[in-house]
């Protein structure tokens, strides 16, 4: 009887617990708190946070419970991440819920989305300099794109062992957009620049909206074929939305499909952060470089907007440059908030959506480019 009790006790979490599991459980709780109480990206942080709790319950190896055990349920769900299935499905949903009108009305704002992607490549250099391998450096650099699905997709292809820290870093920084970006925005712009009002965008026709996903897909994928899975699904989702006749499919893509995949992705990415695997010096480096990447991307967008103003007759508000990182729509919302702090009657949100959306396209191209270089 004593032996039975002892065997049972040795299989409990209390006995198998490691201090690293406790740390990760606390981090998971912070994520859940930020999501629920502070409303920071709750749709992502709550599943990831709870996934962290699930992944850090200490389990006896060999029972097929942990996410890294090949016969566990979590492992099968995690295949969607490691095989790069979930990110394109999320892009399908994003395409089906995105309105590209502002981008079509003023295409020049697309360049801001391109400029912000410079952060990816600068961080890639930083990661190489810190001793990461090129595959790992590329996966870390993509965090600067502020696009969770893209970061996971590229990491799954190039450095699968880093999916956990990279996904958590990417989503954490996406959630922390309202905290990270405003100081950089105020530092790099003058008050006069923040007060610039944007011209009213022209009205965009239905046919333009239908043609856009087809043209964007063909052009970008001919240029960077490795962006096909992400851009293909993004553009397809948008075509479903704009075609109207496929409204049922568009509704499915932007509701049930994206919601289901977000749950599976969030929980499994969270569960992949097992303390013994996650808490390494590499993870610390990834978090540091991820933050750097995000800040550099924001700064590149802002500075490029100022550079464009040297040549443009109708000046653009340089705050829009910060929306070039593809955290949709959070960074656009931050632009609106920072702009309105200077002038409450200045509405920048719809203008900021243009670089924000082009950031999504830009980061997908950047991921494709890095993948093709590394493979």
């Amino acid at each position: 009887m004593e032996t039975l009790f002892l065997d049972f006790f040795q299989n409990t979490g209390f006995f198998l617990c490691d201090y690293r599991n406790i740390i990760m459980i606390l981090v998971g709780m912070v994520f859940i708190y930020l999501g629920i109480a502070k409303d920071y990206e709750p749709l992502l942080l709550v599943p990831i946070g709870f996934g962290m709790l699930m992944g850090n319950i200490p389990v006896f190896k060999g029972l097929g419970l942990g996410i890294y055990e090949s016969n566990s349920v979590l492992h099968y769900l995690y295949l969607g991440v490691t095989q790069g299935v979930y990110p394109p499905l999320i892009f399908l949903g994003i395409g089906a819920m995105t309105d590209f009108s502002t981008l079509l009305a003023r295409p020049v704002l697309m360049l801001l989305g391109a400029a912000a992607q410079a952060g990816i490549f600068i961080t890639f250099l930083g990661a190489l300099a810190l001793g990461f391998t090129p595959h790992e450096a590329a996966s870390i650099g993509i965090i600067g794109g502020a696009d969770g699905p893209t970061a996971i997709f590229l990491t799954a292809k190039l450095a699968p062992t880093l999916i956990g820290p990279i996904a958590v870093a990417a989503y954490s920084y996406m959630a922390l957009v309202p905290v990270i970006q405003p100081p950089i925005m105020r530092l790099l712009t003058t008050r006069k620049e923040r007060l610039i009002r944007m011209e009213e965008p022209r009205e965009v026709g239905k046919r333009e909206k239908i043609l856009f996903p087809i043209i964007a897909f063909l052009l970008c994928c001919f240029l960077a074929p490795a962006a096909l899975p992400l851009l293909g699904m993004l553009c397809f989702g948008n075509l479903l939305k704009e075609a109207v006749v496929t409204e049922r499919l568009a509704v499915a893509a932007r509701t049930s499909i994206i919601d289901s995949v977000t749950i599976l992705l969030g929980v499994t990415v969270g569960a992949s952060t097992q303390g013994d695997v996650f808490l390494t010096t590499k993870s610390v480096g990834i978090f540091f470089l991820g933050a750097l990447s995000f800040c550099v991307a924001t700064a590149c967008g802002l500075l490029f907007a100022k550079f464009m103003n040297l040549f443009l007759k109708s000046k653009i508000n340089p705050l829009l440059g910060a929306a070039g990182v593809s955290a949709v729509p959070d960074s656009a919302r931050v632009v609106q908030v920072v702009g309105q702090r200077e002038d409450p009657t200045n509405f920048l949100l719809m203008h900021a959506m243009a670089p924000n959306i082009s950031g999504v396209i830009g980061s997908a191209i950047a991921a494709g480019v890095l993948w093709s270089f590394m493979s």
Partner: protein
Amino acid sequence: MYGIEAIAKYNGWAISAVGVSIVFTGLVLLSLSISRIHKVLDLWDNRNNIQLFKKKVVKDPKPELPPFTPNEKASARQFRLLISTMDDPFSLQRLLHLAKISGLERPHASLDHLLKARIIEPDHQGHHLFNSEAFDRFVS
């Protein structure tokens, strides 16, 4: 390996430069293409009006109306007086009737002359209007 040495060894500078260029090229090309979509669509909608595809029609120059003689000018002034007594727009039949009972000379021919000079113009709803600008040009 760390620092600049690691970047150089793994071809980091070239990868970054080419990577940024490709992203920029892609988005610039896309931006240029989508900025032309509405113009191409407008062109397509108005393809029947594009001069390049239209058959050139040589129009005969419109013959200039000879200047009014003093008699015609006098007649035009009398017609203006009659029109001023009528509603605006007015009925051409009623004007002709008034001209006849007022004893104007050759009312049909005079009225035809005023119509050709566009001093009297149709309102395209069955009535006519007096064009004072044309009157001033030909008569005053």
